[in-house]
């Protein structure tokens, strides 16, 4: 159990605990902020694993853009700022959801533990900007362009959905 393993465990526990708080919190804004903590802990996890560009993109896109979008949506849908009682489904649905979630975790965990590679060395040089950028713009340039077309399509679709037909 090296120091890196201890740090991985710490960030992992932080990500799981804040994720659990994000889905069970009874105040919407607190849930969005716990999501920030969870995504930030995941970015720290990527940094520890050596995937530096992925960690930075996670911080920029997920924490910086996605959570801000969630907060804006909460503001625009007049979300209650205090404690709210109608955020969760009734108790039987919640128990069923907890059973489904727990069994998914157990199933995935068992499959991943069976494929455990054991001790691996941390290769930080493949996660840095230069090797990742070289391979992204040399071998993955076609998916890269397709993803930008996808982003354009999502943007146009979001504008089309929110305009409706009143504005003609």
């Amino acid at each position: 159990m090296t120091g890196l393993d201890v740090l991985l465990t710490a960030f992992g526990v932080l990500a799981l605990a804040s994720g659990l708080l994000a889905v069970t919190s009874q105040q919407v804004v607190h849930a969005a902020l716990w999501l920030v903590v969870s995504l930030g802990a995941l970015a720290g996890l990527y940094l520890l694993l050596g995937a530096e560009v992925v960690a930075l993109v996670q911080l920029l896109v997920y924490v910086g853009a996605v959570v801000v979008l969630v907060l804006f949506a909460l503001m625009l849908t007049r979300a209650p700022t205090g404690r709210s009682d109608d955020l969760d489904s009734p108790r039987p649905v919640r128990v069923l959801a907890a059973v489904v979630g727990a069994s998914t975790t157990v199933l995935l965990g068992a499959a991943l533990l069976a494929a455990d590679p054991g001790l691996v060395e941390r290769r930080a040089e493949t996660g840095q900007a230069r090797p990742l950028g070289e391979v992204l713009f040399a071998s993955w340039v076609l998916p890269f362009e397709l993803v930008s077309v996808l982003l354009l399509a999502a943007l146009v679709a979001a504008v089309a959905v929110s305009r409706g037909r009143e504005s003609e």
Partner: protein
Amino acid sequence: MHLTVPALVAAGLAGIGLYGVLARRNAVMVLVGAELLLNAGVLLLVLTDLGGAGRAPGGDPLLSGQVGALFAITVAAAEIGLALAVVLLLFRTSGSSDLRRSRSLGEAARPVEDGDPR
């Protein structure tokens, strides 16, 4: 380092995200659960680039795991932008973002006014 802890974190996040999608009633809270589910997948993608049975020595030269993670994050951002636009439209037409209160989301459910281009 051992990759068991990040792998178990990915499994736990998938279960937590699934609970969030199934148990929440507020539309934006369902999206928070969906984001956690997506992050579990992205974490697994990053883990495949670092270790695993039958890997070539020196790892994958194409860095498919990390590049896949970058694309997955981008697609998730596009998806949540569109999903929140739909949530805002739902709020505008039905007055609340409670998913149990609105049963019809499609265009056919709305009454057709005169002069509609449809």
